[in-house]
């Protein structure tokens, strides 16, 4: 317990936002998943001290909160990158060679099975099961934008575009 108390990142020391979320859901343990979704939207991941705080506030065991947070694929206990690249590997995308897209991204961004976020916190790569846009297979979703009938050339261009934009942002050329 001691270590979590001392290693809290500064942004999670204040639980005011968490309190607001908890109040919105009436401190109801049955709404735990919705609470965690809102918290993740706020912090972009689920910081461990926040999970403990939620458990205390809802008067449920910490194990219950951590159990839910680690059970569902959408919750992440690790910070994610600015751009979340979700490559669909549902059946239709799989038979239309989505693996080649995953290979390309892993090679370009130097990611692998164990490392899904780039060191500069710009990209997180996720292989997801089905996004329900099978008519456009293979599909890649970057943040909220859906790209359909993607091939390695098209994906390469999209990545180039993002990197260029980030570079220009870095030099202050654009906001």
């Amino acid at each position, binding site marked *: 317990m001691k270590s979590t108390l001392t290693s809290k990142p500064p942004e999670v020391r204040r639980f005011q936002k968490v309190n607001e979320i908890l109040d919105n859901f009436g401190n109801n343990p*049955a709404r735990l998943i919705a609470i965690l*979704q809102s918290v993740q939207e706020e912090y972009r991941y689920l910081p461990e001290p926040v999970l403990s705080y939620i458990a205390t506030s809802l008067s449920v065991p910490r194990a219950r909160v951590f159990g839910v947070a680690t059970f569902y*694929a959408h919750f992440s206990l690790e910070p994610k990158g600015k751009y979340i690249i979700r490559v669909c590997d549902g059946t239709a995308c799989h038979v239309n060679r989505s693996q080649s897209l995953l290979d390309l991204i892993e090679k370009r961004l130097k990611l692998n099975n164990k490392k899904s976020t780039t060191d500069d916190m710009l990209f997180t790569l996720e292989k997801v099961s089905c996004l*329900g846009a099978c008519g*456009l297979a293979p599909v890649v979703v970057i943040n909220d934008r859906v790209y359909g009938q993607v091939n390695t050339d098209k994906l390469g261009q999209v990545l180039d575009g993002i990197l260029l934009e980030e570079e220009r942002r870095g030099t202050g050329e654009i906001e």
Partner: protein
Amino acid sequence: MTAVNLVEIAEKARQRIAGINYRVLICAGTGCIASGSKAVYEEFIRLTGAIPGIDAVVMTDDGCGSGVCDGGTGGPKSNGAVKSKEATSIFGTAVVSKTGCHGLCQKGPLVTVQPLAAGAEEIFYCHVTAEDVTEIVGEWIRSGNPVERLLYRDPNNGHTFRNSREIPFYTKQKRISLVDCGHIEPESIDEYIMRGGYAAAWRVITQMAPAQVCDEVAASGLRGRGGAGFSTGKKWQFALAVKGDIKYIVCNGDEGDPGAFMDRSIMEGDPHRVLEGAIIAAFASGASHGYFYIRSEYPLALERMQKAIDGARKAGLLGKGLFGSSFNFECEVVEGAGAFVCGEETALLASIEGQRGMPRPKPPFPAQSGLFGKPTVVNNVETLATVRDVIERGAAEFKKHGTPQSPGTKTFALTGRILNTGLIEVPLGTTLNEIVYEIGGGIPDGRNFKAVQIGGPSGGCLGAEHINMPLDFENLAQVGAMVGSGGIVVLDDTTCIVEVARFFMEFTQHESCGKCIPCREGTKQMLAILQDIVDGKSQPGDLELLEETAKVVKTASLCALGKTAPNPVISTLKLFRSEYLAHIDRRYCPAGVCVALKTYTIDPSLCNGCHRCSMKCPVGAIEGEKREAHRIDVTKCTKCGICASLCKFEAIAAV
């Protein structure tokens, strides 16, 4: 509370659109949005000054509804529309509408130009970009003709079609739950009511007893469209018979099967139809509260379903004393958090309760003890979307489609190696041949049909020998497949069947919740064996071990996820055993997919000995004199494929 007057709402909506000359329907389903339909929508409004959506049409003072828009937030006056005189005279008053999915996602963005005058012909455009809008509008003003190059072209014979109804993809279908998808604005409750919506709910609540509704639906033979195919009417009867102070109705929109997207399309394209089904189901089973559990991968479905609920509540179609009766009903949307197992009903209920989504043994069935321990009916999205039709036309009419055991229609998501991918709805009992060749247009690139995978990770494969088998619940179960949620993935001869089986096993293994040992450990072992086979590390006896493990997992698992997980393996073993054996005995992948089993060879008649490959081979496995055919030493080759990608003469191939 005063009762809702549906007739009045419909009449007002009808008056409002009476002055409209043209309607442009632009598909705004997830597929078409990804292809850029939003820009097309905006360009139509900018160019023609058309009114954005029928709810933005306002009545003029004389009450004739000539549909002059006063702007609002997105109206033509406020967005500085370039509305030429010609455009105004030709179009008169035009409305541009965002619709749900037409089903033909691959050809998107889809645009339908619909003259509302009697006898006029509507025109259906494919692959429309914002740049094309000028041409569509211009051509229309000049000649009244459609833009030929944007019409649907039959991929096999090049024939073009003006009207979507004539396209073979649509002519062979029978659309009941999808009937209005792509033809109405999903966000307009008025349009839904104008087209007869909520009349079935009104009739049920004001003129029938709950038991009568259950009986009617039971008599129709409607079976759950989510997988297991249990009688919907019977499910409601069970819940009705159980005593309880509060009962729930849950709509299962956790469509997790990879390769299925009909529930998403219905929720995005016609959400009020699903909501009306839920109201009827609630009345019939005695429920007073409803939940729509929708997976978070479907943001648009979540948004439209929420809007539909808000709209219905505002109109007085949710709340206390519906239609002046004593029946109360409220409902809400719950967002999933990414767990396939939550499609299983008891796991789904646990998830709504804020728990880990783990299934529990049945009985007690949810109808006896479900959400928060109360009697609960869990129905799939498509099932609820079918209910309105059953009530409207009656059980006898409903049974006219489909087979005696499996009446009605079923939506299928047709994907994979096929020309027309998309969403279809056909009577149950339609053959695979009709689906793949007549609706789907056959296999692209001149390849051969190999199999279809139906029902996702719980389903199985059907091969060429099943091509004329009528698809219904019984026939599919008999050959070890299942209707499941209705994903049909077409596989051609470039697909390795063992790799497909491995793919599904990897999926179910990953999604196994870990509660029961047969599923948790069994799927892991099955995956390990399949991985060995595609990696060329299998041993004799592996197939027998695989079959034995499959049997245990199928028999002993707790829920349907585990019980059906071995299906893809069992059914492919039955149909394509020789392909498995080729991998094991000869270390050979007939489809040429499994990398570990590939052998790279150089065709001496094409190789001119340029040295390009031998210089780049990382392990020095290629030898040969300059200007003479080279050879690959298979004992050194690591099958990296660099040589094949470098060869300019296509002399190197993996077989």
